[in-house]
């Protein structure tokens, strides 16, 4: 789709109730804007949020952003009309809250396909992000991620997950460590992107840095954020440093040299380069290019 960007380092929620937030958010540096019809919208304003998001995206779609609409829950009374509006707004993706089973993805996929046909939108063009927000979602993460070709990302929701586990949510995140890894492995197996949970204390920059360092080191592709002040911190962790870029380039040069000389094993700085190192180097350079760095 023409509006898509390949970076998904940061996804900023924007409430469907608030025009000024929508306008302001389009000027920040987040990669993904998530227009929200769910938690940030009071029950009495669901109808207004649908129309506001629809009209805003039809007439003033933000340029250079990956556009997501989060609809209400699969079993809520709002889901059908949310999808009617969301599909016709033609976002890059629709984000489905609290997905727990493969068949839920298939059900949503069928509904989207029907609306795409009715509205004359290319079938299959709207992607799906599935929120994993319960132990059932974590346990079924791979089946969810591979339930439809539309699914391109799983996003962990830590607050609801910990509630489903009867766990306490902490800043250190020990209670979600297994869930993070389980979702990541499911994403890697299914070949979709993995988006980490929100760090909700918007005033704790050091806490956000520590949490995002873990997010990055575990292997996530990005993180959902709740406030514009979190954007630059999170983006910085997902943008490769000059040192990382240079090292990645050296790894790939060594691999190419090895191929040219038909070497069975390739070394760099005395250490052997294996396939995972080559893949990491390719990822680093892809992230750098996506962030606008010339490599």
């Amino acid at each position: 789709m023409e509006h898509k960007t390949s970076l998904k380092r940061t996804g900023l929620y924007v409430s469907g109730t608030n025009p000024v937030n929508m306008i302001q958010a389009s000027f920040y540096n987040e990669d993904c804007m998530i227009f929200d019809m769910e938690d940030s919208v009071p029950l009495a304003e669901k109808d207004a949020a649908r129309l506001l998001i629809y009209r805003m995206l039809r007439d003033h779609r933000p340029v250079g952003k990956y556009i997501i609409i989060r609809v209400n829950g699969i079993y809520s009374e709002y889901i059908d009309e949310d999808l009617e509006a969301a599909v016709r707004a033609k976002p890059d993706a629709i984000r489905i809250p609290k997905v727990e089973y493969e068949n839920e993805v298939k059900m949503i996929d069928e509904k989207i396909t029907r609306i795409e046909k009715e509205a004359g939108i290319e079938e299959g063009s709207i992607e799906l992000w599935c929120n994993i927000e319960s132990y059932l979602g974590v346990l079924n993460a791979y089946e969810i991620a591979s339930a439809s070709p539309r699914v391109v990302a799983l996003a962990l929701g830590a607050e609801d997950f910990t509630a489903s586990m009867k766990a306490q949510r902490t800043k250190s995140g020990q209670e979600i460590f297994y869930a993070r890894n389980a979702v990541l492995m499911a994403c890697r197996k299914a070949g979709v992107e993995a988006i980490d949970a929100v760090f909700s204390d918007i005033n704790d920059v050091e806490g956000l840095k520590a949490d995002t360092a873990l997010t990055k080191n575990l292997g996530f592709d990005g993180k959902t954020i709740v406030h514009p002040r979190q954007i630059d911190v999170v983006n910085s962790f997902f943008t490769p440093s000059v040192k990382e870029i240079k090292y990645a380039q050296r790894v790939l040069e060594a691999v190419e040299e090895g191929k040219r000389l038909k070497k069975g094993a390739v070394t760099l700085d005395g250490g052997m380069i294996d396939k995972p190192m080559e893949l990491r180097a390719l990822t680093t350079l892809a992230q750098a290019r996506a962030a606008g760095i010339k490599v």
Partner: protein
Amino acid sequence: MRLENTGIAGTLESSDVMVTVKPNPASGIDIQIESSVIAQYGDEMRETVKSVMQEFDITDAVVELQDKGAMDCVLRARAETAVCRALGVGFNWKGEDGK
């Protein structure tokens, strides 16, 4: 369509507009605007409201706008919501197809 009830949508926050749609039996469309940019955008705002009334086939209504600098798409969304609320109907999403 005939309006029997009042519908309100929007807020008085910056970049928004509060739209109130009221019955106005056999008296046409009466648009009343409060806005600091009425001199620059008043005509456009009236056209947008008229277009929404046509979309719902409403010929008689009082439409009050308390504008706080809303973009045209925001005004349209709020007016459509207010009319749907006044009529007690959902928005006709299929009517958007092909537009």
